[in-house]
């Protein structure tokens, strides 16, 4: 008796082992095998030990709280059915690990294999042990991803890559559909908990959303279990190493689909839609898979199509909606896993020992490897449904169900015939496999001299075949109880009476079995000589290649349609894109505002101030002027824009926002200087000469843009006014104002919000600022000015002509130009440093702070540029802005992390005042250190951008000189 915690171990263990496996050296074959084998065995034992808890038909659950606010919980749950699957996964997984040790060649990078294998096993266990639908889908997707990696293990092989990609695409799309279906189920039921969903069958079946749910869930199951029309990925996945095929295509990956159908059977089955969709897909898959299998020349291809066919059989059994059908389906899942795993392993042994899997080239291996041959024959007989083997029992149950009446539909009428035909095909391909591999003689010498494989490579096959035999002979006493607990956990109270006996008397199903055996054998004799030399794939159908159709669909969707849409909807031109964006924003705003009244009943009584109005008349004139002049008179536009900025700044002062005003003013200064530095590199603009037609169209375009601009401006004005005259609701502002001092230790609420309450936002913001500065720096290192901008500007040339002191080859500025102001500017430097320190220190209590101080100090550097020119400053500059940025970020982060050390969340601050000599009482909240980081970063970023831009004027001189020298050399 074990607790639910074991369930978590079952899933965690393989993932942990996967990480360990990845770290082992690439030649550690034995260590990897011991690790993986040990883990799989441990899981197997844990699964076995859980059995007593669930034998009675109840489930063991273990929940882990995940996001309780959203009702999300990790739930691990095991009942009889999940137990059966957990046994199959861990048991066959263990055998596959042993087998792999001898199968893989020493050259293969073995850690990668075991890493993927263990992670896949963990994901698969996650699927079967999930007690929550969303969690199930996540593990489901993980199985898709890890099977992709396993199938593509030999990625140097193109067919492995293609097969892996195809399986991922198909099962991935199915997984998306499944997620949609699960979300709908959660919406209908109101919970994602499996137990609650399983209890809501009637609700789901009668709901309007039943059909969408059914289709989405079935899409997931069909793609995973390779049901028609999604069967084509499975044969292509055979490019995987054989141990992978033995694991994925017997007990795990493809069984996930039928597992899901059986799991959801109590809630989704029993309707006509279910019967028809699932039944049709299952029947087509059953018959076509078996038919295609006969004509494969690759042993693994034969087994792959056989797998598809058997999955079709299980699907068809589930479609019937009768409890006995579900019993047979569950029983066949178990049986198919055992015999198919052993057959894949046998195929791998044959491949390993002879060097080929092509049945046209093989033959007569019975004498070379008698033991393997015997094991393969028994397993094939189970696959064909020969009596005294487990395949026979479930097939008998299938026949018995096929002849029952389930629904008034042609599908139900032809079911028995389809069943017999498919069984006959199964007999044919089973005989074909055995005959062409082990009997007769090879037409030409084999690539390798065959002999028996190592004992431990054969052991897993032997054990699995033994199970086939024992279950086939004494089913009731061996698997009986386990099957019963699995069945009860799915069917609950509606569990029917069924008998696992081998002999039921001369019944109709037995007759059908005999007919199938005889017909299959006869068919083999008929087409035997054709098969010996025929091409790969069945006649006629050979041309309909699922892979080719898939590739064509992929090309159409991901290339042609994408190109078409891009051609129609996309544009590389910026203006239409921006116009579209503005238009969408405008329409969205209008649609939202259309309903409610724009103005409230009660309006705030506002004050009137003539000065304020005059200010804004100037501001508006500046804005319009900037818009008007920006094309031909850039400098004027810049001045006017700054005018609008200044009015904005004054507005902040006017309306009780001193911090904003300070920041705006300083930012305005720096921005203007930056743009001024850039203006020099822009081309001179002249009015274009247009033909009358062109002029007409460009005027029309302007009218349209003008109308949009007016609409946007008007809209913004209306919305602003509507908000401003409304009574504000209760906001979080009160909290900040009340707690700024008691909790943040500062009286400047805005600063406390920035560095304390919302410190994390500020941290993100300064990071952005640092990134931008470094981007600017890097971009400018690659800057190449346009040819006409190289060389001195017109103004500089005029000055140089009049100035005798100008340096030959292009001077910078007239000597002694603005001599007195420049001396003052240089003297101002220390003054601004003190101002900046003052702004910084008082920031927590009075308007100021790290941002403002940083930009203020940066403007001190700007002044030096203005006063003495780029060259002079660069020679004397001792500031390394990139380091300032780095230190700033580190200080801010360290302040945040410091609070971890004291057991508080990131960026928790502590406030107190420190008495300093001379200066007096200084607030020393830890937020001050954070603000110091902000200060350093802002300073570094601003100065970096500034010097990077200013430096270009020196570079262009150098470039001009080099160009001039080159010209001289040519002459």
């Amino acid at each position, binding site marked *: 008796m074990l607790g639910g915690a074991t369930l978590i171990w079952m899933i965690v263990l393989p993932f942990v082992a996967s990480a360990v496996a990845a770290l082992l050296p690439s030649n550690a074959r034995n260590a990897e095998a011991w690790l993986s084998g040990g883990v799989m065995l441990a899981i197997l034992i844990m699964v076995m030990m859980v059995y007593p808890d669930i034998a009675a038909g109840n489930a063991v659950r273990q929940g882990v709280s995940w996001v309780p606010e959203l009702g999300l919980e990790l739930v691990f749950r095991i009942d009889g059915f999940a137990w059966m699957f957990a046994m199959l996964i861990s048991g066959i997984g263990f055998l596959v690990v042993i087998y792999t040790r001898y199968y893989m060649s020493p050259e293969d990078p073995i850690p990668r294999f075991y890493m993927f294998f263990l992670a896949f096993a963990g994901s698969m266990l996650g699927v079967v042990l999930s007690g929550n639908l969303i969690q199930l889908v996540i593990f489901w997707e993980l199985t898709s991803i890890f099977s992709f990696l396993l199938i593509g293990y030999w990625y140097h092989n193109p067919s492995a890559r293609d097969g892996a990609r195809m399986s991922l695409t198909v099962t991935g799309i199915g997984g998306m559909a499944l997620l949609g279906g699960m979300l709908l189920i959660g919406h209908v039921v109101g919970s994602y908990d499996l137990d609650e969903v399983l209890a809501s069958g009637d609700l789901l079946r009668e709901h309007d959303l039943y059909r969408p749910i059914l289709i989405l869930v079935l899409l997931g199951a069909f793609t995973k279990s390779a049901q028609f029309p999604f069967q084509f990925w499975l044969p292509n996945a055979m490019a995987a190493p054989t141990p992978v095929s033995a694991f994925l295509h017997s007990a795990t990956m493809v069984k996930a689909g039928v597992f899901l159908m059986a799991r959801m059977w109590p809630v989704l089955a029993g309707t006509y839609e279910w019967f028809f969709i699932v039944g049709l897909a299952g029947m087509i898959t059953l018959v076509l898979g078996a038919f295609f299998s006969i004509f494969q020349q690759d042993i693994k291809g034969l087994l792959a199509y056989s797998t598809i066919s058997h999955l079709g059989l299980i699907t068809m059994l589930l479609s019937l909606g009768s409890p006995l059908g579900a019993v047979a389906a569950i029983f066949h899942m178990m049986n198919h896993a055992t015999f198919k795993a052993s057959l894949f392993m046998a195929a791998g042994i044959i491949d390993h020992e002879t060097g080929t899997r092509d049945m046209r080239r093989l033959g007569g291996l019975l004498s070379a490897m008698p033991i393997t041959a015997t094991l393969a024959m028994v397993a094939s007989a189970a696959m064909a449904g020969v009596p005294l083997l487990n395949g026979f029992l479930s097939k008998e149950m299938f026949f018995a169900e096929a002849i029952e009446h389930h629904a008034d539909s042609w599908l139900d009428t032809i079911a028995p015939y389809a069943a017999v035909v498919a069984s006959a095909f199964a007999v044919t391909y089973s005989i074909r496999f055995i005959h062409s591999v082990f009997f007769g003689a090879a037409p030409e010498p084999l690539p390798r001299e065959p002999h028996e494989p190592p004992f431990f490579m054969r052991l897993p096959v032997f054990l699995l075949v033994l199970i086939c035999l024992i279950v086939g002979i004494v089913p009731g006493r061996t698997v009986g109880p386990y099957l019963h607990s699995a069945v009860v956990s799915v069917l609950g109270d509606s569990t029917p009476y069924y008998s696992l006996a081998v002999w039921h008397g001369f019944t109709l199903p037995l007759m059908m079995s005999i007919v199938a055996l005889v017909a299959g054998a006869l068919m083999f004799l008929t087409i035997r000589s054709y098969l010996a030399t025929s091409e790969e794939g069945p006649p006629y159908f050979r041309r309909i290649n699922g892979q080719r159709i898939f590739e064509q669909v992929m090309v159409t969707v991901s290339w042609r349609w994408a190109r078409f849409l891009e051609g129609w909807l996309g544009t590389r031109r910026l*203006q239409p894109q*921006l116009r579209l964006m503005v238009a969408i924003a405008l329409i969205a705003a209008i649609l939202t505002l259309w309903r409610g009244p724009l103005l409230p009943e009660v309006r*705030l009584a*506002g*004050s009137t101030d003539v000065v304020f109005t005059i200010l*804004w008349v100037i*501001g*508006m004139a500046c804005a*319009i002027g*900037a*818009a008007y002049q*920006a094309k031909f008179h850039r400098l004027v*536009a810049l001045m006017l*824009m700054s005018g*609008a900025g200044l*009015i*904005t700044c004054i507005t902040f002062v006017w*309306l*009780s*926002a001193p911090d*904003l005003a300070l*920041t*705006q003013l300083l930012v305005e200064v720096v921005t203007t200087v*930056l743009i001024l530095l*850039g203006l020099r*590199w822009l*081309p001179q*603009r002249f009015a274009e000469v247009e033909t009358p037609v062109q002029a007409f169209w460009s005027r029309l375009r302007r009218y349209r*843009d*003008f109308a*949009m*601009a007016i609409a946007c*401006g*008007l809209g*913004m*004005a*209306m919305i*602003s006014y509507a*908000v401003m005259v409304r009574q504000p609701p209760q*906001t979080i*502002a009160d909290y900040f104002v009340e707690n*700024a*001092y008691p909790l943040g230790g500062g*009286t*400047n*609420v*805005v600063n406390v*919000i920035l560095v304390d309450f919302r410190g994390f936002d*500020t941290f993100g*913001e300064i990071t952005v*600022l640092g990134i*931008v500065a470094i*981007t*600017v720096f890097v971009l*400018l290192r690659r800057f190449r*000015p346009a*040819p006409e901008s190289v060389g001195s500007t017109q103004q500089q040339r005029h000055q140089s002509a009049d100035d005798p002191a100008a340096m030959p080859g292009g001077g910078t500025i007239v000597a002694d130009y603005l001599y007195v102001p420049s001396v003052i500017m240089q003297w101002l430097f220390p003054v601004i440093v003190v101002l900046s320190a003052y702004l910084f220190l008082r920031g927590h*209590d009075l308007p100021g702070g790290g*941002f403002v101080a940083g930009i203020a100090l940066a403007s001190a550097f700007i002044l030096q540029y203005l006063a003495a020119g780029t060259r002079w400053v660069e020679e004397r500059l001792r500031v390394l802005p990139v380091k300032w940025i780095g230190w700033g970020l580190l200080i801010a982060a360290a302040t945040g992390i410091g609070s971890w050390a004291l057991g508080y969340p990131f960026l928790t601050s502590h406030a107190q005042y420190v008495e300093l000599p001379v200066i007096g009482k200084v607030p020393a909240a830890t937020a001050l250190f954070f603000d110091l980081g902000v200060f350093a970063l802002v300073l570094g970023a601003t100065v970096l951008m500034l010097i990077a*831009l200013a430096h270009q004027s020196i570079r262009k001189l150098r470039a001009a000189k080099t160009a001039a020298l080159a010209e001289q050399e040519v002459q």
Partner: protein
Amino acid sequence: MTELTLSLGIGVLVGSGVWLLLRPRTYQVIVGLSLIAYGVNLFIFSMGRLRSGVPPVLDGSGIVDPAAYTDPVPQALVLTAIVIGFATTALFLVVLLVARGLTGSDHVDGREP
């Protein structure tokens, strides 16, 4: 009246900005973006309603009455917005300069129409 004046101011700033945003030259776009930034910052700021002479700077004594101060939250938001706006303007400026150097054109699409 203050509200009406400021609303009209915001409208004119945004309108002029949108007009410039739709123009073909990079310099027009950068001026346009700056004007829009002014308008939007004022708009966000005005969400805290307009009040004069009540800056959110406490006197540091006794019980605090939130009604005696203007709303600090939009101010904190706008302060951040001003700095980020500065960063994006600088970045855009450099991108337009580099683009002009590389393509030889100051058209927003990097080539003359």
